[in-house]
């Protein structure tokens, strides 16, 4: 069997070029990237916050009787419940609940998706940061405290930089998972890359080209993310 050059050109034209079909994929990809990026920001910031709250509560074991102790204990309890719920329920269900119940008055689908994935990722990132923090040698923490550094100074200069380094591999995985997970955005009608491919199929009636094309785009981005995280890991280890 021979495939002529003309056949390939026709194939690409009929599936992607004609009637600006490619724009369904391109615009969808743009949405996928935006959702991933802003969800990542929320997940990262909230994840660090949740992890620090839980670690501080464990380290300091503050009394419920002082105002600041009460606050830390309360926040830690809320964090635990939050993480349990988020990790124990499917992301798709969370997305549907956000869209249909909690944010029912918010008509910007992109923001609904960003908030859902950001809040979801935060729970996972919190666990990753927490294990990274707990992997820091307790001896180094004692050494810092023995020199007179406060708990906060020790956290910011010794614990967090090492925790960040410890959890980079797991953290990279989480970013990749987050990126791929945004492909369920179509459940609420947001036209991301996956949904864009679906719409394209409804125009061409050929399933394989758009799905394979979107799969390839996801794969390329994942490979790029892997590269970035490997480079980061190399940068932060000094041997």
């Amino acid at each position: 069997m021979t495939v002529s050059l003309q056949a390939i050109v026709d194939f690409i034209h009929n599936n992607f070029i004609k009637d600006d079909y490619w724009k369904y994929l391109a615009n969808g990809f743009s949405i996928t990237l935006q959702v991933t990026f802003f969800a990542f920001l929320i997940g990262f910031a909230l994840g660090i916050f949740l992890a620090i709250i839980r670690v501080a509560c464990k380290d300091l074991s503050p009394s419920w009787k002082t105002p600041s102790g009460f606050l830390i204990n309360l926040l830690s309890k809320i964090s635990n419940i939050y993480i349990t719920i988020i990790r124990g329920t499917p992301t798709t269900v969370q997305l549907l609940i956000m869209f249909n119940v909690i944010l029912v008055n918010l008509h910007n689908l992109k923001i609904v998706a960003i908030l859902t994935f950001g809040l979801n990722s935060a729970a996972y990132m919190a666990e990753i940061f927490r294990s990274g923090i707990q992997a820091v040698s307790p001896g180094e923490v004692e050494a810092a405290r023995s020199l007179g550094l406060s708990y906060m100074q020790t956290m910011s200069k010794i614990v967090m930089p090492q925790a960040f380094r410890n959890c980079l591999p797991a953290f990279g995985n989480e970013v990749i998972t987050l990126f791929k997970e945004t492909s369920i955005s179509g459940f609420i009608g947001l036209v991301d890359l996956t949904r864009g491919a679906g719409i394209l199929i409804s125009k061409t009636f050929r399933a394989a080209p758009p799905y394979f094309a979107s799969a390839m785009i996801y794969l390329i981005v994942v490979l790029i993310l892997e590269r970035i995280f490997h480079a980061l890991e190399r940068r932060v280890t000094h041997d």
Partner: protein
Amino acid sequence: MIKIRNLYKNFDKLEVLRGVNLEIEPSEKVVIIGPSGSGKSTMLRCMNLLEKPTSGEIIFKDQVINHGNIDINKVRENMGMVFQQFNLFSNLNVLENLTLAPVMRHRLSKDEAETKAMELLKRIGLPEKVKNYPNQLSGGQQQRIAIARALMMDPDLLLFDEPTSALDPEMVGEVLELMTELAEAGMTMAVVTHEMGFARQVANRILFIDEGQIVEESYDPNDFFDNPQEERTQQFLSKIL
């Protein structure tokens, strides 16, 4: 310099320290020996409140530090500690390890701290390691730098918690040599160690601790090792000498 009054420390139901009394005067070099699990490290760690005493008082420079409204960080600035596992900050290079605390605690400016760090590194013979990270150094080098790190704060008292126990035998000497130098320079030191040669040579007082109590105390190290008075001391010394 530091007083311990009727110190008790329990870990859950385990009584580790059972009524320890001790006073260390300026420029003293007190060596603390005893079998493992006797509470000697715990006693040292209670002095700078890395362990919180169950009861009793720690009085540092005429101030009770284990209860009341005390800024423990301020107290610890004046009380250095050297650990068995060195505990250098693995994310910082040697210079940063030395300058972190004095700069963060506003003791010295960054420039002053770096100048002082270089002086100390020259003194301990490791000026060329200034940009190295801890994992690039031998155990002996790490421990000497850990001592220098403690010295950066100009402490009034230095606590040593088995500083040579994690070292390869050929590196013990260089660390003991530095400690001897410090002792001769007049530093007040409390040293938990198994190095009996160092104890004989440097200590002005020896404490033998067993089962959470000071069993025997002597201001004459040679006499302590040659004529131990208590039966438990004799048993311990016969096993290790």
